[in-house]
């Protein structure tokens, strides 16, 4: 066992875990955040996607030791508040993207990361970034929702000149 420290959804974590434990199981079992899902255990399906310093990683095959000192965000950590959803979540909900819903945390985390890197993704960019598997076949709606979320984030950023943190001061 070894002590690992990282930031999870804004909270400092200090855990005594086996260093080779995949981050997924630390998040789900030790930190009790179950929105991040186990789908394949080999980084193939993306159901376990979380953000590590803002970049999407497949946590089922990412040893917790590599998360040392990093900032991790899960599906539970992307909404601005309890009442408000992240624009990607909001569009996902309005367009009834989820069916069984099991892969959707990972899909949304992949989409949020994509839009951060590329605010106006082309179809090709969506094709390569959104490689998570959905057995229910929600792909057509994911494509539409990513585009709609991109537009909303863009138009929101045009009117929101003041950063929320600054506004709070």
């Amino acid at each position, binding site marked *: *066992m070894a002590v690992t420290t990282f930031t999870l959804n804004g909270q400092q974590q200090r855990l005594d875990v*086996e260093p*080779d*434990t*995949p981050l997924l*199981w630390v998040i*789900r*079992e030790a930190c009790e*955040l*179950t*929105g*991040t*899902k*186990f*789908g*394949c*255990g*080999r980084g*193939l*399906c993306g*159901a376990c996607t979380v953000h590590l310093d803002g970049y999407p990683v497949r946590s089922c095959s990412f040893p917790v030791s590599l998360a040392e000192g990093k900032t991790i965000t*899960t*599906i*539970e950590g992307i*909404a601005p508040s309890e009442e408000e*959803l992240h624009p990607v*979540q909001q569009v*996902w*909900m*309005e367009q*009834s*993207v*989820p*069916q*069984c*819903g*099991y*892969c*959707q*945390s990972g899909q*949304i985390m992949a989409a949020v990361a994509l839009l951060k890197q590329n605010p106006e993704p082309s179809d090709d960019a*969506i*094709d*390569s970034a*959104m*490689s*998570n*598997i*959905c*057995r*229910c*076949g*929600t*792909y*057509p*709606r*994911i*494509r539409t929702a990513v585009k709609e979320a991109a537009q909303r984030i863009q138009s929101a950023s045009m009117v929101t000149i003041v950063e929320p943190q600054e506004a709070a001061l």
Partner: protein
Amino acid sequence: MTTLSRRSFFKQSAALGGGIAVAIHLGGCGSEPVYPGDRENALQPNAYLQVTPDGKVVFQLPRAEMGQGVYTGLTTLAAEELNMPAEQIVVEHAYYHPEFRDPEFQMMMTGGSVSLRNNFMPIRQAAANLRAWLRAAAAQQYKVSLDAVELSNGQVLVEGREPVGFGELIETANSLPVPEKAPLKSPADFSQIGRHSVRLDARDKVTGSARFGIDCTVPGTRTAVMRRCPHLGGRVKSFDASAAKAVKGVEAVFEVNGGVAVVASGYWPARKAADALDIQWDKGPLAGLDDNTLRQRHEKLLQSEGRQVAEVGDAEAVAGERMTARYRVPMLSHSPMEPPNALVQVSENRVEVWTGTQVPDTAIGVVAAALERPREQIIVHNQMLGGGFGRRLVPDYIVEGARISARTGHPIKLVWSREDDIQHDYYRPAAMAELSATVDNGKVTSFSGKTVVPSIMGQIMPMFAEAAMPEWLPPAIPRSLAGLLKHVDTSMTEGLGDTNYQFPYKKMETVHDDTPIPVGFWRSVGHSQNAFFTESFIDELAHRLGQDPVEFRLMHMPHDSRRYRALKLVAEKAGWGRPTPGQFQGVAAHDAFHSSVAQVVTASVEGTNIRVHKVVCAVDCGLAVNPDIVIAQMESAIVFGLTAALKAGITLEDGKVKQSNFHDYPMLSLAETPEIEVHIVPSTDAPTGVGEPGLPPVAPALANAVFAATGQRLRELPLRLG
């Protein structure tokens, strides 16, 4: 007294199409269990609905939500009759109760695309009764006539008063009789049924807060994983657990269910230890079997005499030149995104199960049998299902969890890996068919065929019988039923011998492949392969006769049928016959689960690479309770069906599944998903199946498009250009 009418049993053992129609009447002398979710001081007119003292309406969702939308669809039925927004209703996954048994399948289960069809009236009636009860109570309490009382927006409006909360009427209502046949709303007055609305489970599913079986835990829970014999049907001979026991966090390693279980503090130590086990296997009955021997076996069986399942018309009509074609489909795994798992806590007088299952009834039956406990002790807390597709009709993983919990005395969360899932499924069986027609003078004079396929019901019935059979029946009886059922299992030929194509003579036979390969109900079941056989061969016939594939089909089916209307509509919407240059169209139309779906696939071919550009789909499913969910289910089934049409199947080597994870058992990706356009045929008929019927036509429509593009007739799935 409980009676079992054998005759009606066999007669009505119709397509499970994902289920089993069993006409067993479970009268019985015992008292009915209390309504599920029973709350103190609540108003409870029936098993489905309650009003709590604070005025909330609680709906017991009697079917499993696995993506197909019952959470929204069935709640909408109750909301409509209660005149309140569906979002205001508290939805709970129902516990087992006899009133939740499906009238066709005689068990509480979700499958066969029957959820809306068979609950359309009962749930509306249950809600209408509650509405009538509340109105009567308000009229009495406020001494007004019934006409002066109406329900609106989750409250009771009484003329001349402020709106009254439902909770304020509980006491008065309880002093009045429960209405049983209150009038239902006229469809003309529907304000929610038939309208577009956001799924009620969408919010929880975008925030990560929706709870699936794998997310459940109770104090003291240990995680278990299992190693099962990789050779299907085999079992453990001996094993060395020393390396496994050395893994930190491992608590126990023992043999169970023919495999080896590892119990540990969490998933990772359990998995590491399981990988470290050194196990000698007894390869079991399928040792030596591979894909070639399976193919040869089917070819040989095709030569044997079949059981006739359909014969229509006059055999004298057979005349002219004969054309014959042979088709084949591979085994397929369901692979829902949430691997099978169950949390089971076995205690002295109670066995609690937290899991996602399509068959709470069967789960209770098999756990009771496995632990030798009465059914009443088994409680299934059903959760959201991370995909079902028929996989969660088999409760094998629940029994594993139950046995491990019973053995260790701890609550056990048993979790399968993706490898476990792909290598230990109850597979869509491999099947082969030979179809044949005679053509005389430019006309088809006969259409016949023979299929070789295992009987799913024959294999699975004994397990279902644990749930559906009266308990006094000796255990040997259900087992022997399996042998008989293979003679009546309509899922073997559904969509093959029962299409509405009209030819002077039609005949269909089936040969039972009595195999120990585990087989199960895979989304659309027999239709998943039989539509590929039928709709490919019909296309071959059209081309042979030099006729347009759409025209040929329309000409040979009743003009007043749903399928005719769906096909007409899809041809029009897809611009049939006018594809973009360089692209090619293929069509298929199929009836399944009482609905009709027709699809036009547009594809192109580069080298040996098949690219699907667009799928236009028309569906007639009666009244679309939630049209957006109908569209979503068509999209879903098309993607599911395209995976089967284009991606690898399950193949065997020495009785062992060769594929293990999504790298060698791939799924269609977003990048490969075509544009999908869905049209719903307007209808006022009662709702019919939606979750499965969109799947069968897509593979043949694509194969037919590939033929249009290349002149190559691909008669096997997955489609591979040579």
